[in-house]
């Protein structure tokens, strides 16, 4: 009321969210290197569509647009395949922002991670264009910086994950550095790990959740592999293939949709994500299991917070 005349800025300043966006910049640059300038176009379209859809709702709710929407849009764009039709990307992010977040009342009130909601929606709705048109990334200098899109004759039919589940072998270094086909921002394990660790150090992401995710994934996956179930990924390759690292570092740790108020809750939540990823990857026809694993775990997050809080209260009551 003091400064009625001062207009509120359109976008809320949120340092934590800004940090995540900064951390994603190297991945964006890498996606241009691997897949040409078109990836920037995808990013632009997704950002615009995501921002506009939040803006429309924010107007109605009389809220400010949160900086978190740019985290959502960037994460979503980076999880799209390089040849994704721009309109599909736009539909996906609009769904993610509107139905993943705004219908719940806007920032801070959503149950599901909006980027993943959008991703799951387009993967289920437009299966063919999203899973059959991965292309080999460009390599060498100047890489994708001189191209719009890698040569179309290098079109392959599957991401490393799909190839691996089909029993093919891949050189590990390619997986690690990112010169394999895959989604825009998910190919370079090295960059994801570096930026992800920076986020952990800044305490923007919780190391407990990330660690628990890895444990939850590796333990059952290793078990399945050594029991000799058919079609099980080598746990180690599985770690670097597909969006697993990207999702564990950036999406599982989203504070709003994850269980964050107790440390125990963080551990259980992370384990849940990891185990579900392993289970869905092994026993379902969806190789991109981590998307669904996190969405499922999101559902349990409030319950975990509640249960551990109650348990603590009971313990306290018993002690006094």
């Amino acid at each position, binding site marked *: *009321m*003091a*400064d*009625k*005349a001062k*207009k*509120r800025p359109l976008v809320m300043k949120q340092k934590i969210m800004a940090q995540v966006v900064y951390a994603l910049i190297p991945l964006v640059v890498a996606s241009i290197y691997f897949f040409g300038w078109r990836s920037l176009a995808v990013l632009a379209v997704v950002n615009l569509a995501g921002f506009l859809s939040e803006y429309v709702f924010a107007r109605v709710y*009389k*809220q*400010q647009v949160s900086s978190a929407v740019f985290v959502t849009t960037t994460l979503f764009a980076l999880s799209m395949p390089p040849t994704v039709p721009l309109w599909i990307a736009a539909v996906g992010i609009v769904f993610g922002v509107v139905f993943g977040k705004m219908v719940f009342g806007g920032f801070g009130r959503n149950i599901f991670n909006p980027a993943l909601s959008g991703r799951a929606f387009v993967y289920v709705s437009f299966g063919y264009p999203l899973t059959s048109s991965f292309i080999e990334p460009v390599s060498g200098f100047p890489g994708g910086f001189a191209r719009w899109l890698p040569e179309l004759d290098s079109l392959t039919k599957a991401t490393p994950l799909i190839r691996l589940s089909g029993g093919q072998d891949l050189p590990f270094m390619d997986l690690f550095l990112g010169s394999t086909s895959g989604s825009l921002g998910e190919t370079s394990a090295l960059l994801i790990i570096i930026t992800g660790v920076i986020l952990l150090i800044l305490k923007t992401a919780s190391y407990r959740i990330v660690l628990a995710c890895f444990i939850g994934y590796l333990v059952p996956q290793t078990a399945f592999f050594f029991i000799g179930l058919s079609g099980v990924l080598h746990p180690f390759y599985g770690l670097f293939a597909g969006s697993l690292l990207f999702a564990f570092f950036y999406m599982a740790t989203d504070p709003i949709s994850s269980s964050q108020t107790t440390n125990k809750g963080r551990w259980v939540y992370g384990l849940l994500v990891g185990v579900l990823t392993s289970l869905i990857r092994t026993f379902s026809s969806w190789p991109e299991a981590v998307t669904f694993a996190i969405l499922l775990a999101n559902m349990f997050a409030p319950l975990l917070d509640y249960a551990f809080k109650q348990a603590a209260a009971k313990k306290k009551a018993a002690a006094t």
Partner: protein
Amino acid sequence: MIILYSFLAVAVLGGLFGIGLAVAAKALAVEKDDRILAVEAALPGANCGGCGYAGCAAYAEAIVKEDADITLCAPGGAAVARAIAEIMGISVEVSDQKMVAMVHCRGNRDTCTYKFDYNGIRDCNALYALYGGDKTCSFGCLGLGSCMKVCPVDAIDYDSRGNVVVDRDVCISCGKCVDVCPTGVMKMVPYSADYIVACHSIDKGALVRKYCTVGCIGCKMCEKKSPEGGFTVEDFLARIDYDARGSRDEAAAACPPKCILRVSSLKPDLVPVTALQEENEEA
């Protein structure tokens, strides 16, 4: 064939669950005193909580089981109290006058002086806990809208000048806003009241003038101009006795700070959302 099977399966399941529900409804039925149901039916059903119970059903139960006072339902007023009295077989004396809440202050950014810029929780009680509010006048409306938050029927809103105003035609006289208001500037007046003294300050006239351009300075002009109007000035603040039937127009016109206001002029304006409102709803 598949269609037939699935149809049958769903039909059988539906039938089973239906029977289950029917049995459960009979077997697990809760015995309820008929009078509770009758009292509940007589209550308005707004669940405003103005009576102090969790809602109409809880109040009905309290009346029957704990002999709660039957005149607590302000929205229902006299009619409901009589209806409940009949159900309970007791007699009751109530007045037919409907009361409504009114904000007795017109101080805002343009008319008042302020002590400091407040930048905390948008809640009047929180603000009041800091030096009694940001206005230099410690009796006036703090304007953060705690009353709006508790009003069960959204009868309270800002007008275009940023003052908090109650719409007396929407108000159900539950009194929750009166309870929540830290300065006591929200007071009940009869629905039929033609004027209110829109000031709540018992500071001396000179101080009021320093703090606010629309505050009552206790000049007693109203007493002189409308002797039949029931005006009395006490503690430097004019008060109206609404039992007095004389005209109050003269006094309102003559009041130097113009703080005797016609109630019918007090309505939340349906103007486009102001910056002020936006800020308040954000909180």
